[in-house]
C-alpha cells in the first residue's frame, strides 16, 4: 500500500546545539520517510539523537538547539521552514506527540478536562460542552473507567498508567495523521508497559494513524513496527523493514544490539556486550562514528564516513557490508 508520495519525508535533516565553544551537531543529515498508517521505529542507545529527531519534526527542540539544515516535508509543506503560527496549526492537530514520563507531561494544577478541551478548541471552533463529549468518547476508547468523572480530576489523582492512557486519548483527540511517541512506556512499570503498548498499537491500526515510535527496547520495536531506523551518534546507520533487520542485521552495531537481547534458550549464558560506550557529541570520532567499538574497523572506516548501500530492502552505511556486497556482485557476475 505504498502510495507514491510518503506522508512525511525527512531529507538530510541537520540539528545543532549552540553551546559554549562552538556548535554541537546532534543530527547529521538524517533522511527517512513515513507513509500513511505506517508504524516506524527509531532505535539506538540513549544519546544517539532519537528524541531530538522526534522533537525536531514539530520544531519543538528546546533552546539552544535549532534546525540547521534539511527539510521535513509533510503534505507538501516543509515544516522546518514553517512559521511558528502555521506550525501551531499542525501540532496536536495533524501530528500529535506522546512524551515519556506521564508524571511530568500533564500540567499538575489544571484538571484533565481543561487540558483536553483546550486541545480541541485550539484547532476546532466548537463549544466546551461538545468538546467535553469528544473528550469523554476518546477516554472511553482508551478504556478508562467512568470517563466523565475523570474530566474533573487532577493529574495527581491518577496512576502512571492511567495518565499515559489520558495522554494517548489527547493525542487522538483531533484524529491526527501521525503520532510521534517518545519512549511512551519506559517510565511505566513492566506489567503496565505491555498493556499500554498494545492499546497504542490497536488504536493506530483502527484509526489508520501513522506511528513514529522512539525506543531503546528492540523487543517492542520488533513486535510493533513495520519499518525501523537504527541511529548512532546523530546518524542513521541502518534503516529498512523491521522483520528483515531483526532477522538479518547488516550493520555490526545493529548486530551487537540484537545479540545483547537476553535470548530464551541458553540459561546462564553470558550476555554479549558491545565494548566501549556511545561517544559524547563533544568529541565524535572521525569517519564512521562506530569505528572505535567495531571489530571490523579498517583504516577506511576511520577516515571517511561510509555511504549508504542497499542490501535487500535495507540501507546500510558500513564499508564492511558494502565490500561484502561488492564481492557477492562480482561473484554473481563471475558465476553467471
Amino acid at each position, binding site marked *: 500500500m505504498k502510495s507514491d508520495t510518503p506522508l512525511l519525508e525527512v531529507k538530510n535533516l541537520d540539528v545543532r546545539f549552540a553551546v559554549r565553544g562552538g556548535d554541537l551537531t546532534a543530527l547529521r543529515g538524517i533522511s527517512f520517510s513515513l507513509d500513511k498508517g505506517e508504524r516506524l521505529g527509531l532505535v539506538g542507545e540513549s544519546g544517539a539523537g532519537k528524541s531530538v529527531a522526534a522533537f525536531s519534526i514539530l520544531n*519543538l527542540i528546546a533552546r539552544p538547539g535549532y534546525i540547521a539544515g534539511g527539510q521535513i516535508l509533510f503534505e507538501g509543506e516543509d515544516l522546518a521552514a514553517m512559521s511558528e503560527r502555521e506550525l501551531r*496549526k499542525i501540532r496536536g492537530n495533524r501530528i500529535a506527540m506522546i*512524551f515519556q514520563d506521564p508524571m511530568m507531561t*500533564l500540567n499538575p*494544577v*489544571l484538571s484533565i478536562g481543561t487540558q483536553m478541551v483546550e*486541545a480541541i478548541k485550539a484547532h476546532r471552533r466548537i463549544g466546551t460542552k461538545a468538546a467535553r463529549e469528544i473528550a469523554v468518547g476518546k477516554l472511553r476508547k482508551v478504556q478508562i473507567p467512568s470517563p466523565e468523572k475523570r474530566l474533573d480530576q487532577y493529574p495527581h489523582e491518577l496512576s502512571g498508567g492511567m495518565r499515559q492512557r489520558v495522554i494517548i486519548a489527547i493525542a487522538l483527540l483531533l484524529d491526527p495523521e501521525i503520532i510521534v511517541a517518545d519512549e511512551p512506556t519506559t517510565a511505566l512499570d513492566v506489567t503496565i508497559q505491555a498493556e499500554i503498548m498494545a492499546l497504542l498499537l490497536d488504536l493506530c491500526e483502527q484509526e489508520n494513524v501513522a506511528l513514529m515510535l522512539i525506543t531503546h527496547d528492540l523487543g517492542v520495536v520488533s513486535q510493533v513496527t513495520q519499518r525501523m531506523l537504527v541511529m548512532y551518534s546523530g546518524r542513521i546507520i541502518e534503516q529498512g523493514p523491521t522483520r528483515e533487520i531483526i532477522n538479518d542485521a547488516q550493520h555490526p552495531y545493529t548486530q551487537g544490539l540484537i545479540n545483547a537481547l537476553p535470548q530464551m534458550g541458553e540459561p546462564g549464558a553470558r550476555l554479549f556486550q558491545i565494548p566501549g560506550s556511545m561517544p559524547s557529541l563533544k568529541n565524535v570520532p572521525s569517519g564512521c562514528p562506530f569505528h572505535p567499538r567495531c571489530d571490523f574497523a579498517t583504516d577506511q572506516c576511520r577516515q571517511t564516513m561510509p555511504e549508504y548501500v542497499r542490501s535487500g530492502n535495507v540501507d546500510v552505511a558500513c564499508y564492511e557490508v558494502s565490500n561484502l556486497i561488492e564481492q557477492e556482485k562480482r561473484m554473481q557476475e563471475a558465476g553467471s
Partner: protein
Amino acid sequence: MLAFLVQRISQAVLVMFVISVIAFAIQDGLGDPLQEMVGMSVSMEEREALREELGLNDSMVVQYLRFAGNALQGDLGNSYFYGKPTLEVIAEHLPATLELVIGASLIIMFLSVPIGVYAAIRPQAWLAKFFMGVSTVGISIPVFLTAIVLIQIYSIGVTIEWFPEDTGWGRWLNGAFTTEGGLPSYGRGDELTHLFGTWYSGFFSTDGLMHLVLPCVSLASIMLPLFIRLIRAEMMEVLQSDYIRYARAKGLSSMRINFLHALKNTMLPVITVGGVQVGVMVAYTILTETVFQWPGVGLMFLEAITRSDIPLIVAYLMVVGLIFVITNTLVDLVYGLVNPTVKLTGKKA
C-alpha cells in the same frame, strides 16, 4: 480544615503571649512615660504620686499579671498619650495603614506580573534587561530616599535647567523633566468616605486617591523589585518543564501557554513568599508613614516609642503579630485553593 484553623489560632495566641512578655520585660528600657504627661516645673512628689497612681512602681510581675488579666477580657490597657483604650486607638489608625498596604499591593500585582512574565519569556530583550536593571537599583535605594525624591518632584515640583535653553531640544528636554508638582505630600486629605466602624476610606474620592498616590508608590517601590525578580526566576524555571513543552506540542497559543499553564504554576511559590512579604510590608509602613505624615499604626507606633507610651507599644506589637498570623493563614488557604495537589491540613513540603 477545622484542625488547620485551630492550629493557626493556637499559634496566634502563642505569638501574642510571647510578644507581650517580651514587650513587658523591656518596659523600663523604653523610657519614662511620665515625661510626656507632666510639665517641666512639676515637683518630684507630684510625679511620685502620679507614678503611684499609674501603678508604675509595682514590680514588673505584678504589672504583667494585671495586664494579662485585663488582656483576657480584651482590654489591653489605656494609652497614656491618647487617654483612650489602646485597642480603640489602634482601631482608629489601622484602616489608614491597611489602605496603604492594599494600594501598594495592587500596584505591585498589576506591575510585577506582566513585567516578570515578559522578562522571563524574552530574557534577552533590552526592555526586559532594562526592567531587571531598574528593579535591582530599586531594591538598593532605601525607601526614605525614594519618598523624599518623589515629594520633591511630584508635590513641590522641580524646574530643570540642566539642558541649554537656547537649543530646541534643550528647551524640550527641560520642559519634559520640569514638574509643577501639585500631588499632595502629606496626610490622607479631608474627603474620606465612612465605610464602617472606624474605617474612613480614601479610595472613594478623587482627593483621597490623590493623597494615596505618593505613599503607595514609595511603599510599593520596596517590594516591586523583589516580586519582579521572583516571578521572573520562577517563570523561567517553569518554562523549562515538560508540561509546557507538551502544551506547545498540543499546538496551544503562546498567550495561553504563558498566562495559564506557566503563570498558574509560577504563582504558587510567589503566593507563599508574597504572603510573608505582606507581613513585612506592614513594618515598612513605619518609614513611609513617617515621611508622609500618614496617620497609620506605623506613625502611631513610632510616636508611642518617642513618648514611651508602653501600653500602646505592647498592644501594637501584639496586633501586628496577630496580623502576621492572619496573613500567613490566608496565604496557606489561598495556596490550598490554587494548588490542587495540597490538602488543607498540611502544607506540601
